C-alpha cells in the first residue's frame, strides 16, 4: 500500500480557468521521504491542499493512507499531520499552550507521544513559556512540526517547511525529518530549494502544475544526458551572452559565480569554445567539467 497515491490530479481556479495542477500523478511508499521540488507558483500548495482534504480536486483521484481524499476525508483528517506553508499557530499562545491545544484537539496528550517530538522539543523547552509569535523563524517551524506530529500521524505533509529559515536551522530541520522517517512515518515535503532535493528518497520536479520528472535524486542526476561544464571569466554577463550566441553551445546559464554550459555534442568540444571566446577578447577563462546538480536537471527539463 502507498502512503500517498495521486492519479491525474487536477485543480483549476477561478473564472479564467487557471490550471494550477495539471494531471499530476505520483506515489509515496510507506516510510518514504518524498519531495515535491519546484519554484513558487508551481502548484505545490494546491497539491498539498487537495491531499490534506482541504480542497476538492477538479479531476483525477488520490488516496492517503489508502483512503480516498474525497470520500473518506474525515478518517484521513485523523491520520495525517499537516504543516501549512504559512506559520499557522496561535501567536498569542505560549509554546507549551500551543502544543497542549493541538494535542487535545487530536485527542491525545503531550506525554503520550513525547518520544516522537522529544528531539525537537528539547530545543524548544527553554522557550516553552514564550509566546509563539515571539519565536525566531526556525523555532516557529520546529514548534509547528511538533504540533503536526503530536498525534503520531501516519503521513506527514510539510508544505515548504524551510522557507524563510536560516541555513543552519534548515539543516537541523532535515535531520529531524530523517529521524522521523526512521520511526516509520511517511513524509511528503515540498520545497523551492533545490539543494534540499538531494536529502529526499525520491523527488518529483514540478513546474506550471505539471510534473517534469519523478525519480530518486541520484537517478535524476544520472539521467542528465550531456556533459556539463562550469565556465568562468572576466565580465561574466558578456561572456554568457557570447557563449549563448556562439555555434558551439546548446545552452549556457548563470549559476552562482559560474556559467553552466551544455555544449552541442556532435560538433563542438570545450577547446573549440575556449578558443572562440578568447578570440572574442575574453580573458581569465576557466572551464571544467562538473557533475550536474538537481538544479541543473531542473533547468534542462524546463527547456
Amino acid at each position, binding site marked *: 500500500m502507498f502512503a500517498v497515491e495521486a492519479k491525474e490530479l487536477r485543480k483549476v481556479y477561478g473564472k479564467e480557468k487557471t490550471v494550477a495542477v495539471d494531471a499530476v500523478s505520483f506515489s509515496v511508499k510507506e516510510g518514504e521521504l518524498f519531495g515535491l521540488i519546484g519554484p513558487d507558483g508551481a502548484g505545490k500548495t494546491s497539491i498539498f491542499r487537495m491531499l490534506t482534504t*482541504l480542497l476538492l480536486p477538479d479531476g483525477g483521484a488520490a488516496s492517503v493512507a489508502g483512503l480516498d481524499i474525497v470520500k473518506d476525508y474525515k478518517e484521513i*483528517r485523523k491520520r495525517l499531520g499537516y504543516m*501549512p506553508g504559512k506559520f499557522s*499557530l496561535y*501567536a498569542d499562545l505560549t509554546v507549551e499552550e500551543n502544543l497542549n491545544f493541538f494535542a487535545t484537539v487530536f485527542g491525545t496528550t503531550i506525554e503520550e507521544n513525547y518520544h516522537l517530538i522529544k528531539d525537537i522539543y528539547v530545543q524548544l523547552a527553554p522557550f516553552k513559556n514564550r509566546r509563539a509569535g515571539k519565536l525566531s523563524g526556525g523555532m516557529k517551524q520546529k514548534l509547528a512540526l511538533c504540533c503536526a506530529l503530536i498525534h503520531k500521524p501516519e503521513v506527514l505533509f510539510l508544505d515548504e517547511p524551510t522557507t524563510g529559515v536560516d541555513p543552519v536551522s534548515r539543516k537541523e530541520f532535515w535531520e529531524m525529518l530523517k529521524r522521523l522517517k526512521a520511526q516509520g512515518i511517511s513524509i511528503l515535503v515540498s520545497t523551492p530549494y533545490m539543494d534540499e532535493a538531494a536529502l529526499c528518497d525520491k523527488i518529483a520536479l514540478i513546474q506550471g502544475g505539471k510534473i517534469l520528472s519523478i525519480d530518486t535524486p541520484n537517478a535524476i542526476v544520472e539521467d542528465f544526458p550531456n556533459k556539463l561544464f562550469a565556465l568562468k571569466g572576466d565580465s561574466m554577463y558578456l561572456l554568457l551572452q557570447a557563449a549563448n550566441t556562439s555555434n558551439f553551445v546548446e545552452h549556457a546559464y548563470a549559476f552562482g559565480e559560474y556559467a553552466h554550459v551544455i555544449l552541442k555534442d556532435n560538433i563542438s568540444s570545450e577547446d573549440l569554445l575556449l578558443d572562440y571566446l578568447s578570440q572574442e577578447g575574453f580573458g581569465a577563462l576557466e572551464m571544467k567539467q562538473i557533475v550536474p546538480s538537481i538544479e541543473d536537471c531542473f533547468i534542462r527539463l524546463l527547456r
Partner: protein
Amino acid sequence: MKQFLSFVRKEFYHVLRDRKTLFILFGMPVVQILIFGFALSNEVKNSKLLVFNQAQDEASAKLINELEVSNYFEIEKVVGSYSEIHQTFKQGDIRLALIIPANFGSDLAHQNKASLQLINDASDPNTATTLNNYVNIIVQDFLAQNYPSAKLPFAILPQTRMLYNPQLQGAPNFVPGVMAMILMLICVMMTAVSIVREKENGTMEVLLVSPFKPILVILSKAFPYLLLSLVNVTSILLLSVYLLDLPIQGNIFMLYAVSTLFIITCLSIGILISVLTNSQQVAMLISLMGMMLPALLFSGFMFPIENMPLPLQVISNIVPSKWYYIMVKGIMIKGLGISSLLKETAVLVFITTVVLIISIKKFKIRLA
C-alpha cells in the same frame, strides 16, 4: 468534551491577552451607561428658579422647600417686586419665575383654593413645557400631602399618572436600549471577527485538518463570548440599579434568561457573518453597518417605530434588538412575566433557528 473545554480555554487566552479588545469589551458598557445616564439626558435638572413670595407664610415656605429638594430646581434668587423679575430674565440667569400671591396660605386653608403664577423663559419651548410639568407635579404632590380637600383653580383637573416611570426619567428607556446595543455589538462583531481571524491566520487550515468537528470549532468560539456578554449584562444591571437608581421590577432570572436567548441570537448572526466572509475587515464592516445601524434605528430606543413609514416598520420586525428591547423594558421597568412576552421570545427563537441553519448549511468543511 475535553477537546471542547481545551478550545474554550484557548479562546479565553486570546481574549484575556488582547488588552485593547478586553478594555473595549468591558469598558464600553460602563462608558455608554455613564454617557447616557449623565450626559445625553433629556431630563432638565437644576433649573434656576426665581421666587417672588408675597405671602411669606408657612404654606408658601413649604411649597418652596418642596421645589428646592426636588433636584429639578435650584432657587437662584428671591425678589420683592415684579420689576426685578423681568430684569433677572433679561440677564438670562433664570429659566422660570414663581409668584406666590399675598394670601396663599389662608386662601388654601379657608377657601380650599389658591392661585400661583409661573413665568417661563420660552426661548426653548420644550424646556419651558417640561419645567411647567415638573412644577405642576410638585404642586399636586404638595396639595395631596398637605391639603387633601383642596382644589386648584381648574374647573376640570386631569388626573395624570405616569405609569412605570412617574418622574419621567430617561434611564428606564435607555438602559434596555444600551443593553441591546452592547450585546449586539459584542456578540456579533467579536464572534465574527474571531472566527475570521483564524481563517486569515491560517490556523483554520490546521483545525480543519484535525478530527475536531468543524461545527464544534464554531461553537467553542461562540461560547466564551456568551459568558463575557453575561458579565456585561451584570455590569450594566449593577450600574443601573446602584448608580442610576433604576430598580429591576420583574424577575431577575427571567431577565438573564431573556438576555441569554438574545445573546445566542446575536452569536448565531456573528457565526453566519464569519461563515460568509474571509477577512476581518469585511466581517467588521458587515457587523457594524449591517448590525449596529439597524440596532440603533429599529430597536425603538432612539426613534419610535410607530412614526416610521410602513416598509421600515415591517423591516424592523427582523431586527432582533427590537424584540429584546421590548422584553427588557417589559421585565425591568414594567415587571411583566414571561406570559406577556411569549411572542417576542418566539420571534427570537425563530430568528436564531433560521440563522443557525443557514450557517451550518453554508459552513465550509474545506478551504474553498
